[in-house]
C-alpha cells in the first residue's frame, strides 16, 4: 500500500508565491555582475532596404562607449537555426544576428553598442548614422509572392496536409459553404520584456547565459554549436520569468550577441529590452488569411473541408520555422467528423516583424476558421448553431480517434474524449435555453445582444521525453531536478505535488529545480502545454523508484521486509501500525551513496484535451464596444493536479484570447512603418475588459497515455475565444457570418453596423 494521496487534485497554495510577493524575485533585469557592460541594439527604421555603411564614429567618441559592432564583426556567427518543424527549404530565410547588406523589417538589429551603462549606450545609439536605401516593402501575405533574394521567393514553402477523397466530397455535396476569413497579427507580449546577461568564467572555461527561459537545454546546445564550443562549456540559467506565452525563451539575435560579446571582451554583458523594442522585435504571431470551403449534406453533416491559407511569417523564418502554419492545418478539423480534408498553407514572408508561436499557436487561428464554418453551415441548413455542432461531433465510441494527419513529428490520435457530454455540461452551466429566451426578449426591446458557442480540441504533452532526478538531501528536503522550465505557470508546485504524493512527503518539502543546464544534462523545457504531462509522469516514475529504494534500504536496517513499511510525511513507518520510524533524511545519511533515483518518461504521442466556450455579449451600436456579459469555459484535461492553478491558466488564456479577438493588433502603414509600438496603441485588456467567468474543469476523459491521466491545461483558455466571440457578435447583430476578421475592434464593428443599415 503506497502512501495515501494527499496533494494531487488539491488546490494547495503555490510554493512560488512568497518570494514573488516579497519583491525577492530574480527576473532578468535583476541580475548584474561587477564591471558589466550594457548592450544596446541599433535597429532598422526602414522596413526593406539596402543597408549601406554604418557610421559609428560619433558614438565611439562618447566616454564610456567601448565598441560598436555591425555584421562584419559577427560574420563568423551563423544564422539562428530552427528548433521545430524545420523544413530544409526554409533555411535560406533564417535570421542573421545582425543584418547583412539588407534590412527586412523595422526593428531588425543592424548594430550593437557596448557601454558602461544603459543610458550611455542609448545615447550612443542615437549617434549611429545608418544609410539605408529603401526598397518597395511587401506588406500583404496573400498578394502574389515577390523576391526575397535574387533566386528566392517570398513564398519559401507550401504546406499540404490531406486525407480522404476531397474532390468526391465536393462533387457529391448537397451544398458548399465558402468563407474568407482573417486573423490579425498579435502576440504574447509578456509583462517582462526580454533580457540576456552573458559572462565568461575564465577559470572554468564556461560561458554563462542568464535570463534563460522556456527551452534552456535546447538553447544551450544551439548556442554552443553556433559559437563552436562544446555544449558542456555553455551553461544557461533560468531565473524568474515574467510570462512566456510561446514567444519568450526562443533564441533571438540578442541572446547570441551578448554571448559573443562576453567571450570577446571577457566582460559580463547585459541586455534588457525596452517595451518599444519588444513590440517590434520579439516574435509576433497569428496573422493568417483563410479561404475555406465545406461540402455538406442536406442535414449539415460535413462531407469534406478544403482550406487554402496564407500565413504571414514576417521578415524571416525564426526558430519555429513552419510550426504555426503546420499546427493550423493539422488541428483545423478539430472535434468534428471530417471524412475528407485538404489544407494548403502558403508560408509567406513580408517586411514585418518575424513570427513564432503564441499560446494555442495555429489553433486560435484554425479554430476561428472551423467554428465560423460551423456557424455558416448552420445558417445554410437552417438549424441552430448548437445543433449543427451536435450533428458533427466525433462520438465517444470512436476514441481513440486517428485523424490521419501529422504534426510536430507525431501522428494525431485523439487519445480520449466525450465531446457531446462536455457540450451538454457547458450549455447547462451557461443556462443556454434560458439565456436564449432572455436574449430574444432583450433584442425585441432594441438591445444588440447575442450568444455563441465554440468547441475545440487542444493538444498537449509533446514528447519525446522528460527526465527527473529525485534526491533526499541532508536538510530533509527532497530535490526534484528537471529539464523543464517555469514561465510563471506554477511548475514548482505541481511537480512537488506529484512527487510528494508518490513518495509520501509533504509537498512543501519538495524543492523543484528547473531551467539550470548545469544541474541535469538534458531536458525539453516548457512549451506546448507539456510540463505537467511529461515532467509530471517522469516525476512519478522517479519518485516511485526512490520510494522502492528507500523502503528496501530501510527494511534491512529495521529488520523487516519492505512491504511492511510505508513512507508517511517524510518518515519511514510500519504500514498500518505503531512501531519504530525513521526520517527519510536520516536513512539517506546512513547510505553510502545517499538516496536518489532518476527516471525518464518517453512518449511518441501527444494527449488531446478538449473544451467548449460559451459567450454572451452586448454590442453598443454608438461606440462599437463589445461587452462580454457571460462567459463559460468547460475544459476536460483528464486530471487536474491543482484545480486552482488550472483555473488560473484558463482565466489567463481567456484574457489573452479576448485581446486578440477585440483589441490587440500590430498594425503597419503601407511602407512597413509599425503603428503599434507602445501600450497606448497596442491595446491589451485590462481589469475592465476581462469578464468574470465560470470555469468547469472536467475529468471525464483521462489520458490513457500516462498513469495519472493527465492532459495539459495551458492553452484551452485562449484557443476558441475569437471563434466564440465572433459567433456571439453575429447573434447580437442578427447577421450570421458578419464577423470575418479578428480583432473585432470598435472601428470595425461600427463599419459592420453601418453596412447592415
Amino acid at each position, binding site marked *: 500500500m503506497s502512501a495515501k494521496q494527499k496533494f494531487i487534485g488539491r488546490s494547495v497554495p503555490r510554493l512560488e508565491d512568497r518570494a514573488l510577493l516579497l519583491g525577492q524575485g530574480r*527576473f532578468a533585469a535583476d541580475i548584474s555582475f561587477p564591471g558589466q557592460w550594457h548592450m544596446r541594439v541599433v535597429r532598422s527604421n526602414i522596413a526593406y532596404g539596402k543597408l549601406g555603411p554604418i557610421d559609428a564614429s560619433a558614438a565611439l567618441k562618447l566616454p564610456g562607449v567601448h565598441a560598436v559592432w555591425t555584421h562584419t564583426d559577427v560574420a563568423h556567427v551563423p544564422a539562428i537555426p530552427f528548433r521545430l518543424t524545420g523544413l530544409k527549404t526554409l533555411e535560406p530565410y533564417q535570421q542573421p544576428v545582425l543584418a547583412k547588406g539588407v534590412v527586412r523589417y523595422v526593428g531588425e538589429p543592424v548594430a550593437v553598442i557596448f557601454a558602461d551603462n544603459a543610458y550611455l549606450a542609448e545615447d550612443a545609439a542615437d549617434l549611429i548614422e545608418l544609410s539605408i536605401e529603401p526598397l518597395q516593402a511587401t506588406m500583404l501575405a496573400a498578394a502574389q509572392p515577390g523576391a526575397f533574394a535574387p533566386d528566392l521567393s517570398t513564398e519559401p514553402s507550401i504546406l499540404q496536409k490531406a486525407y480522404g477523397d476531397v474532390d468526391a466530397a465536393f462533387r457529391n455535396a448537397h451544398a458548399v459553404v465558402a468563407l474568407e476569413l482573417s486573423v490579425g497579427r498579435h502576440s504574447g507580449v509578456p*509583462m517582462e*520584456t526580454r533580457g540576456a546577461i552573458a559572462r565568461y568564467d575564465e577559470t572554468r572555461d564556461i560561458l554563462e547565459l542568464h535570463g534563460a527561459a522556456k527551452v534552456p537545454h535546447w538553447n544551450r546546445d544551439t548556442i554552443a554549436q553556433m559559437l563552436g564550443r562544446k555544449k558542456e562549456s555553455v551553461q544557461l540559467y533560468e531565473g524568474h520569468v*515574467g510570462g512566456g506565452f510561446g514567444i519568450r525563451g526562443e533564441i533571438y539575435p540578442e541572446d547570441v550577441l551578448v554571448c559573443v560579446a562576453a567571450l570577446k571582451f571577457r566582460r559580463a554583458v547585459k541586455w534588457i529590452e525596452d517595451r518599444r523594442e519588444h513590440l517590434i522585435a520579439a516574435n509576433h504571431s497569428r496573422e493568417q488569411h483563410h479561404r475555406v470551403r465545406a461540402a455538406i449534406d442536406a442535414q449539415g453533416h460535413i462531407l469534406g473541408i478544403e482550406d487554402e491559407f496564407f500565413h504571414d511569417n514576417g521578415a524571416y523564418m525564426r526558430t519555429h520555422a513552419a510550426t504555426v502554419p503546420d499546427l493550423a492545418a493539422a488541428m483545423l478539423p478539430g472535434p468534428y467528423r471530417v471524412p475528407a480534408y485538404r489544407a494548403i498553407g502558403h508560408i509567406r514572408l513580408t517586411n514585418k516583424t518575424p513570427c513564432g508561436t503564441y499560446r494555442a499557436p495555429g489553433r486560435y487561428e484554425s479554430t476561428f476558421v472551423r467554428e465560423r464554418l460551423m456557424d455558416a453551415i448552420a445558417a445554410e441548413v437552417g438549424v441552430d448553431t448548437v445543433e449543427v455542432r451536435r450533428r458533427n461531433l466525433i462520438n465517444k465510441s470512436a476514441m481513440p480517434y486517428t485523424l490521419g494527419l501529422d504534426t510536430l513529428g507525431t501522428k494525431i490520435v485523439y487519445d480520449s474524449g466525450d465531446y457531446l457530454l462536455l457540450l451538454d455540461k457547458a450549455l447547462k452551466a451557461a443556462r443556454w435555453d434560458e439565456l436564449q429566451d432572455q436574449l430574444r426578449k432583450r433584442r425585441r426591446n432594441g438591445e444588440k445582444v447575442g450568444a455563441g458557442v465554440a468547441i475545440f480540441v487542444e493538444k498537449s504533452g509533446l514528447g519525446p521525453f522528460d527526465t527527473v532526478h529525485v534526491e533526499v538531501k541532508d536538510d530533509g528536503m527532497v530535490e526534484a531536478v528537471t529539464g523543464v522550465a517555469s514561465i510563471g505557470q506554477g511548475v514548482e508546485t505541481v511537480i512537488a505535488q506529484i512527487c510528494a504524493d508518490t513518495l509520501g512527503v509533504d509537498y512543501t518539502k519538495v524543492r523543484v529545480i528547473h531551467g539550470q543546464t548545469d544541474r541535469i544534462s538534458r531536458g525539453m523545457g516548457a512549451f506546448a502545454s507539456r510540463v505537467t504531462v511529461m515532467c509530471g509522469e517522469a516525476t512519478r516514475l522517479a519518485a516511485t523508484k526512490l520510494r522502492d529504494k528507500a523502503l528496501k534500504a530501510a527494511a534491512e536496517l529495521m529488520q523487516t521486509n519492505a512491504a511492511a513499511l510505508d513512507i508517511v510525511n517524510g518518515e519511514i513507518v510500519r504500514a498500518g501500525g505503531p512501531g519504530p520510524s525513521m526520517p527519510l533524511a536520516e536513512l539517506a545519511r546512513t547510505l553510502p551513496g545517499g538516496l536518489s533515483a532518476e527516471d525518464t518518461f518517453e512518449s511518441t504521442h501527444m494527449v488531446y484535451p478538449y473544451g467548449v466556450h460559451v459567450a454572451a455579449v452586448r454590442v453598443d451600436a454608438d461606440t462599437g464596444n463589445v461587452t462580454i456579459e457571460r462567459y463559460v469555459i468547460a475544459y476536460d484535461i483528464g486530471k487536474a493536479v491543482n484545480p486552482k492553478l488550472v483555473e488560473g491558466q484558463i482565466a489567463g488564456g481567456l484574457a489573452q484570447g479576448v485581446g486578440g479577438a477585440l483589441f490587440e493588433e500590430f498594425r503597419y502603414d503601407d511602407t512597413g512603418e509599425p503603428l503599434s509600438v507602445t501600450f497606448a496603441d497596442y491595446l*491589451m485588456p485590462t481589469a475592465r475588459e476581462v469578464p468574470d467567468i465560470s470555469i468547469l474543469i472536467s475529468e471525464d476523459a483521462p489520458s490513457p497515455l500516462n498513469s495519472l491521466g493527465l492532459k495539459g491545461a495551458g492553452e484551452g483558455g485562449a484557443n476558441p475565444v475569437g471563434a466564440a466571440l465572433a459567433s456571439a457578435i453575429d447573434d447580437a447583430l442578427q447577421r450570421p457570418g458578419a464577423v470575418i476578421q479578428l480583432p473585432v475592434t470598435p472601428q470595425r464593428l461600427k463599419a459592420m453596423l453601418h453596412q447592415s443599415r
Partner: protein
Amino acid sequence: MNSKSNITLTINGRDHSIAVEARRTLVDAIREDCGQTGTHIGCEHGVCGACTVIVDGLPVRSCLMFATQAAGKKIRTVEGLANGDKLHPMQQAFMDHHGLQCGFCTPGFLMLAVGVLEQDPDISDDELLDVLSSNLCRCTGYQNIIKAVKAAAKDMRKG
C-alpha cells in the same frame, strides 16, 4: 547632460544617498542605485503600472518620475510591505486567491492597491475596478487580483 547631483532617497524608512543625473528615472534609481529590485519595469511609458510605488502616500508610476523629484519624499516599495516574516494582508490575499502567476506585475498591483486603500478604505467596487484597470497583468485575467484586493480591503479595514 551627464552631470550628477547628490540626493537622498528615503525608501521604506531607510535613507539612500546617491548621485544621479537629472534624467535618471525614479525606478532606475530605486533598482540600480538603491538595489531594491522588487519594483519592476514593464513599459517605461506609464501605461502598465509594473513600477508603481507609493510616494508620500500616493501610488506613483516610478518610470514617469525623475529620481531628483522624489528626493526628500517618503517612498514605499514592495520590499517594505511585510512586517518581518508576516505578509501584509494584501500579499496574503494575493497568495490565498491565486492573484499572481509569473509575479512580474505583482509588486505594482500590490503597491497600487495598498496605496489606494490606505487613502480610501471604503472605496466602492466600481471605483476599485477603475483603479485596478490602470495596471496591466498578462497572466491572471485579473479576476483573482480583484478578489484578492477586495478580501484584503476587508482585512485592512479591520486591522
